[in-house]
């Protein structure tokens, strides 16, 4: 019985939530203090409306990491658009709501434009400014506001019901909430949602994974705003009138509080937070009235006015300090404690080499093309020339090493190849195309993947999520197909997971699938990063110090693995490394940099004998010759610390 329950946990959860949503008004009046009247149902309706804002804000702030203190302004725009089009132009409410959605979404799109250049407190101020400006502009324009009462509209309701019937209106609002929830959930489970998470975690790695920052920030703002526009329309429909003053900074803060209390990264949490933040103040009002009377009766003249300030303040502090994962996190912990999720058995994947085969065939087709060609690359930082007139080539399927003492400019070459730096002079050619000025997010699509010397993993996401983000440019789903979770999208997601598992099995780290890279030892993190590069089906991988921090045995395994990647997948490798024996054994050709200049190139044998190289490594000459022996004497030696660039 227990077993069956665990396996069906997901479906029982869905059923429970659907049931609760359908019967919410009846559950609500079971709460002591709430009677079966319009007032009670109106509270529930506000909770639903705030849920929509919460879901939208959760996508933007919780998932994409873009803080907004201006959502009250967006809600005001939605509310006024709906009021103006419905009562003003006499459109049916539903149409007005859609217009509000589209128009507010468009404003969100405009709001995203300054946000593209801003982050942290700067972005917060830009959104605060927006939130402050909107009500001022609305008041200034003075359109259709009728004195202190504000703009009045006919309250919408289900056909055939009294406009004042808040119970019926609940069933008008509920399907809209359900649709918003459905769309948002689909977004979070597919390509677009993962792109949001990637941007939140680290913008550098997101770009390296082919996630265009501008594109996805704009998408996040637009979707979030469109949802808030729907909420604004419903809000004015619920109240029947609006005035600009209601949409103030305190309201924007309330929205943030809703998602913080619910749990930042969950959409269900936004709904839970909205319910709590609308129902709880009712209780506190009653409680404080009661307290007030008792205190007055006791002869103390205390005014417990506006208890919501103390309540909000205390709730925020307590949740942030003691329950940072919010209601949703607490619920998940409770469920995992009593109904642990069944362990998924992953079997027989390592035997399946379909992916390897596919990538190899794809890559062999490219063999005829020229590989990588760097022509006269020069990169200066202020007065320092980090790389000077550097040229090199790499043929498809080749393993080439880039070596040199600390500060020789090796990683700078990599950063130019990934477009994190724009070279001052020179040209970068890849498969016959000039990629010198191509933005970083196009590299992966073009077939160039990379790893970083200090790791740029998405530490707070699971290894699986990391590998799914690695496939970002390969996935064909569009924003709309991912919003609606079309069968094609569903299939593509399944294949993507399968691919990720195959790569994990190939690199012998299948056990880490559901772990977070932040909790893994350094060596495994490096493998996860390699897996993330590999899963994107590249034709060239740039490895920045793959052996750093590894001991001898790990280094030997790594060399074998890299050779297998080349042989079995047909992927070319360009690597920067300090470990000489590793480089000499693995690479077919080497380029040696010193102070940004190329001092030698050729086979390992030729390079080792080159006087200029010996000169550059003066004092390290011994290591070049005797490294093998020295290694064997000291099993546990770790390699040089990561180089600074």
């Amino acid at each position: 019985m227990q077993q069956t329950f665990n396996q069906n946990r997901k479906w029982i959860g869905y059923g429970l939530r659907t049931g609760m949503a359908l019967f919410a008004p009846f559950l609500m009046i079971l709460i002591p203090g709430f009677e079966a009247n319009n007032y009670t149902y109106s509270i529930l309706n506000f909770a639903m409306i705030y849920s929509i804002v919460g879901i939208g804000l959760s996508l933007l702030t919780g998932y994409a990491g873009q803080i907004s203190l201006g959502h009250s302004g967006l809600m005001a725009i939605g509310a006024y658009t709906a009021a103006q089009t419905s009562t003003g132009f006499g459109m049916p409410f539903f149409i007005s709501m859609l217009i509000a959605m589209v128009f507010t979404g468009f404003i969100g799109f405009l709001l995203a434009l300054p946000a593209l250049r801003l982050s942290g407190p700067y972005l917060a101020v830009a959104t605060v400014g927006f939130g402050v400006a909107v009500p001022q502009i609305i008041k200034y324009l003075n359109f259709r506001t009728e004195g202190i009462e504000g703009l009045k509209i006919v309250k919408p309701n289900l056909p055939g019901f009294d406009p004042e019937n808040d119970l019926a209106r609940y069933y008008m609002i509920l399907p809209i909430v359900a649709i918003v929830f459905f769309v948002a959930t689909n977004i979070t489970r597919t390509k677009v949602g993962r792109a949001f998470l990637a941007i939140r975690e680290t913008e550098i790695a997101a770009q390296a994974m082919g996630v265009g920052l501008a594109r996805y920030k704009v998408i996040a703002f637009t979707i979030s705003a469109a949802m808030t526009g729907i909420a604004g329309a419903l809000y004015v429909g619920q109240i029947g009138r609006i005035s600009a003053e209601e949409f103030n900074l305190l309201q924007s803060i309330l929205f943030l509080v809703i998602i913080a209390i619910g749990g930042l990264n969950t959409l269900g949490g936004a709904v839970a937070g909205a319910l709590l933040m609308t129902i709880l103040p009712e209780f506190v009002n009653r409680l404080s009235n009661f307290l007030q009377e008792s205190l007055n009766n006791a002869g103390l003249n205390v005014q417990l006015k506006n208890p919501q300030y103390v309540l909000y303040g205390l709730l925020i502090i307590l949740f942030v300090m003691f329950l940072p994962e919010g209601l949703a996190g607490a619920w998940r912990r409770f469920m995992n404690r009593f109904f642990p999720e069944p362990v998924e058995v992953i079997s027989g994947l390592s035997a399946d080499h379909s992916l390897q085969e596919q990538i190899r065939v794809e890559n062999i087709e490219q063999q005829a093309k020229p590989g990588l060609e760097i022509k006269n690359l020069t990169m200066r930082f202020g007065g320092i020339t980090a790389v000077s007139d550097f040229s090199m080539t790499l043929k498809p399927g080749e393993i080439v090493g880039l070596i040199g003492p600390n500060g020789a400019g090796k990683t700078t070459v990599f950063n130019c190849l990934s477009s994190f730096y724009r070279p001052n002079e020179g040209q970068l050619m890849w498969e016959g195309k000039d990629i010198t000025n191509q933005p970083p997010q196009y590299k992966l699509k073009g077939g160039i993947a990379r790893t970083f010397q200090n790791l740029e993993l998405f530490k707070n996401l699971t290894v699986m999520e990391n590998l799914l983000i690695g496939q970002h440019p390969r996935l064909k789903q569009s924003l709309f197909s991912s919003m609606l979770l079309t069968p094609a999208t569903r299939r593509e997601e399944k294949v993507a997971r399968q691919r990720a598992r195959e790569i994990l099995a190939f690199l012998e780290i299948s056990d880490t699938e559901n772990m977070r890279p932040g909790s893994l030892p350094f060596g495994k993190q490096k493998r996860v990063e390699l897996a993330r590069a590999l899963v994107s089906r590249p034709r060239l991988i740039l490895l920045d110090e793959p052996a750093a921090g590894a001991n001898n045995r790990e280094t030997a395994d790594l060399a074998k693995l890299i050779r297998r990647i080349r042989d079995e997948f047909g992927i070319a490798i360009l690597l920067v490394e300090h470990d000489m024996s590793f480089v000499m054994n693995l690479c077919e050709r080497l380029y040696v940099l010193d102070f940004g200049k190329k001092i030698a190139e050729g086979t390992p044998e030729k390079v080792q004998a080159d006087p200029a190289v010996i000169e550059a490594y003066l004092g390290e000459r011994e290591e070049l010759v005797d490294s093998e022996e020295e290694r064997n004497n000291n099993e546990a030696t770790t390699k040089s610390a990561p180089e600074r660039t």
Partner: protein
Amino acid sequence: MMSVVAQIDPLVTFGQALVNGLAFGSIYALVALGLVLIFKSSDIVNFANGEMAMFSTFIAFAFLDALKMPYWVSFLGALVFAAFLGAGTELVLIRPLRKASPLSQVLVTIGLGTLLTGIAGWVWTFEGKPFPDAITGAPAKLGSIIIKQGDLLRIGVAIVIAFLLYIFFRYTMIGIALRGMAQNTLAARLMGVNTERMTTLTWALSTMLGAIAGMLIAPNTFLEPLMMADVAIKAFAAAVLGGFTSMPGAVLGGLALGVIDNMVGTYLSQELRSTFAFAVIIGVLVIKPNGLLGTTVKKKV
């Protein structure tokens, strides 16, 4: 409004707007300095800054009103309270969250601000109370431009404090240690700087700056729990305008915002004052994403 303005010498109108702007701007600058100090030491935007200032001002009010103390005793009493409030906030709320997400850190300060507003409302009600000016007397005149004594004081105090802070950060051991810490916490700790105590100190210092601002502006706005809400937003905007990591930027941003705000109010539109002020700020930020004097911190890979 415009018709009244039109009859007066345009130069006087301009001068008056400038003086009023500088007086408001001085307050913004003080609060903005506090925000920047905290941001530099703990990487947190303290959204409770305004409310902490408001609460400290209420403490001064309690000294004046309930205990019938002279102004300067009340002023010092509020400063001592502010120091404890700031240090206590850092110790109790901020330090445990040092490793939490930036959003959690921001939220906890929002929570504190809201809580302080609520408590002040319960103790002192939400009705505005008069708060005395530190100095009274006939307003000074510069030609036809009227400068209230209080405004003179605001501008004067801002200049003196900016100067004192400059001396403090430039020439004292603690000040230099703080600057070092802001650049590289780990290196500062390795050099023997007690970074934890330093962080607590900046919170105390910043809250005292806010308290001074609160006591200077209360005579203008009336004392009530929400009196700093607008000032705090403007100060935040001012700090961003100047560059959130720069103390001279905070002063510059504060004064600039005060002047822009008043100029817009005088010449363009009283209703759209804040809208224009924010439009200017967003405009500046789009061109200079780190504010006027802020520095870029770019991560290397």
